[in-house]
């Protein structure tokens, strides 16, 4: 698991006034810009553990995506970074300053809410200016200039004197982005900002946000439960489940090399095939046996499995790595074609073999609509092996 750099003890400075006593970390200069260290947060007197042992390093200009199923603690983690939630344990460091005990307004972080949360009684202009009015002594012309710049970037410059209610959902979320951008914060925190928008608009906003982030070159932490959104946006992806970080890595690392069964299953669509197998030895050669098939393993895999003959393991392989051929050809095994689901230039083919469901992805039209049976060939060298408890073997 990458990203767990922390061997620092949780916050030890318990001084009275957290804001005034914010100290510069000695090693501040070359450290990451925002650091989340060993965060733990519980609710209801400890009965609900929302997140635990969360360590994330966010570099200057990095786009980090927190992804995971509903209730896994993404929002809680983000709110701890923003200061809207006080972690039970751990530290938040922004730009070298320990801000764990600082008020939200003293962290110089911008938060974009899932609910948008514009102030309904203020015009768009006043909404965007709000942070500048509250937190800075800039002259009025400078504030106006910033507001107008940001509004232009976001394409809402014609709407500055309207109330939020008179804007569409997409425009409202732009305003809320604008409210964040004028602050020129040290980092942006976005909690599922586009979940209320329709699919087309969401794609468009995604691209825009990524562009804006590239231009501003500021760290951005983006929360989503949509793994596809995570893959398209993130420089670094943090996969969470059940309050814990499961894996941190680039989209390619996460996709190709999941650290456990959960990540393998969660990332990618259609989901990978996860097949229960038994390790068998057949004349000195190690093979994996399943109700439907038997495959021999690579040398690398064999090295791990050598000691484990007779054990049960889970074989994981992405649908892309199942090749489908005519039933007459020699494959590893034959399977029935249940459904062919067009995905654009590719088709997802759902198969069943001896009571097991599998899916494969093939180029468009490779499997005809009336095909009943196919021969399945597995690229075993691209498969992963997991313990039955989910940890990765190889």
């Amino acid at each position, binding site marked *: 698991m990458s990203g767990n750099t922390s061997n620092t003890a949780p916050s030890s400075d318990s001084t009275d006034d957290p804001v005034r006593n914010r100290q510069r970390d000695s090693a501040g200069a070359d450290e990451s810009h925002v650091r989340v260290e060993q965060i733990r947060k519980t609710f209801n007197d400890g009965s609900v553990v929302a997140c635990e042992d969360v360590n994330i390093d966010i570099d200057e200009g990095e786009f980090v995506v927190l992804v995971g199923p509903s209730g896994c603690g993404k929002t809680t983690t983000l709110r701890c970074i923003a200061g809207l939630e006080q972690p039970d344990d751990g530290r938040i460091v922004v730009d070298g300053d320990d801000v764990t005990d600082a008020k939200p307004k003293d962290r110089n972080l911008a*938060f974009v809410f899932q609910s948008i949360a514009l102030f309904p009684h203020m015009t768009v202009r006043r909404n965007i200016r709000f942070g500048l009015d*509250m937190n800075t002594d800039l002259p009025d012309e400078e504030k106006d200039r910033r507001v107008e710049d940001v509004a232009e970037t976001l394409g809402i410059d014609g709407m500055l004197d309207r109330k939020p209610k008179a804007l569409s959902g997409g425009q409202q979320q732009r305003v809320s982005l604008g409210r964040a951008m004028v602050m020129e914060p040290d980092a942006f925190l976005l909690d599922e900002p586009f979940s209320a928008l329709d699919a087309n608009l969401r794609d468009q906003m995604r691209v825009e946000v990524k562009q804006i982030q590239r231009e501003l070159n500021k760290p951005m932490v983006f929360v989503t439960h949509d793994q596809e959104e995570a893959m398209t946006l993130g420089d670094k992806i943090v996969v969470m489940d059940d309050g814990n970080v499961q894996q941190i890595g680039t989209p390619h690392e996460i996709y190709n090399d999941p650290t456990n069964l959960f990540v393998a299953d969660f990332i990618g669509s259609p989901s990978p095939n996860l097949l229960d197998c038994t390790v068998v030895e057949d004349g000195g050669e190690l093979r994996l046996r399943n109700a439907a098939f038997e495959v021999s393993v690579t040398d690398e895999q064999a090295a791990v499995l050598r000691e484990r003959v007779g054990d049960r393991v889970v074989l994981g392989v992405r649908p892309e790595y199942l090749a489908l051929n005519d039933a007459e050809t020699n494959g590893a095994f034959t399977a029935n074609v249940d459904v062919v689901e067009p995905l654009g230039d590719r088709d997802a083919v759902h198969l069943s073999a001896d009571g097991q469901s599998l899916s494969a992805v093939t180029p468009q039209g490779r499997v005809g609509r009336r095909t009943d049976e196919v021969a399945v060939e597995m690229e075993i060298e691209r498969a992963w092996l997991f313990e039955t408890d989910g940890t990765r073997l190889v």
Partner: protein
Amino acid sequence: MSTGSSLGLGDVEIGDVWTRFMTYVVLTFLVMVNLVPFLFIISVSFTPPEAFFGDPSLVPANPTLEAWTKGFADLRDNLVNSAIIATGTAVISMAITIPGAYAFARKRFYGKKVGFYAIIVAMMFPYILLVIPVMDIWNSTGLYNTIPGMWIAYQIFVTPFAIWILRDFFQKLPQDLEEAAQVYGCTQFSAFVRVILPLAAPGIVAVGFLAFLTGWNDFLFSNLLTTGVGPVPAVPVLYGTIGGGSGERVYWGKLMAETLIIGAPPTVLYLFARNYLENAFAVK
């Protein structure tokens, strides 16, 4: 299917007609109940006493302003008292209940639930129950027959429902708004002032208006907690005009004029507050 035509054209369903009919019945009933006595009051206030006991008509034959001038002269000082008492009641209750209701809506503290239900339950009992202990305490603390005494006494009526209504108001406002304000530079307090207060304004104005009305129109406490030498508000004077139940002959014209005079200030206030009040219970 009905096209929803409001003119009864085309295929209107019988249910629509029935609803419409009932609406008018209810409206007519309300108008009769409210407007007819009101017209009667106005009419009587301009009717000379002889005509009232002789042969009254809705439009008086020889209208007179006598009842109005006499009534106003009798009430002038008491109206000032009423204004001070009602305004103070409203201001003090707002000062207490806005933070209180906010705490009940948003903060976590020990005994919150019990405290809230205690306040609600307190509203369920007839206030007359309180007369003896209140008079007792007011007497022994020197609050009896003073304006501050009235202000405090009315809080007993006003604060429970004010807290109840305002708490609901604050609870309905999304928490994200306060948090957004805090992220963008506010303290908890300034977020409350800049975001929550303006958005709760309709509720606050409505509750403040009701508090004012309570202080203005109450008879029970104003009669019991003041004496002729103290700050008597206007309503007990009205009671005097009826004869205090003494069975003397009642000057009806003056009674009606006084009623209208006392009713006028809250009406004017209502007209000013109307925009807020109409929003108060219709906010999203």
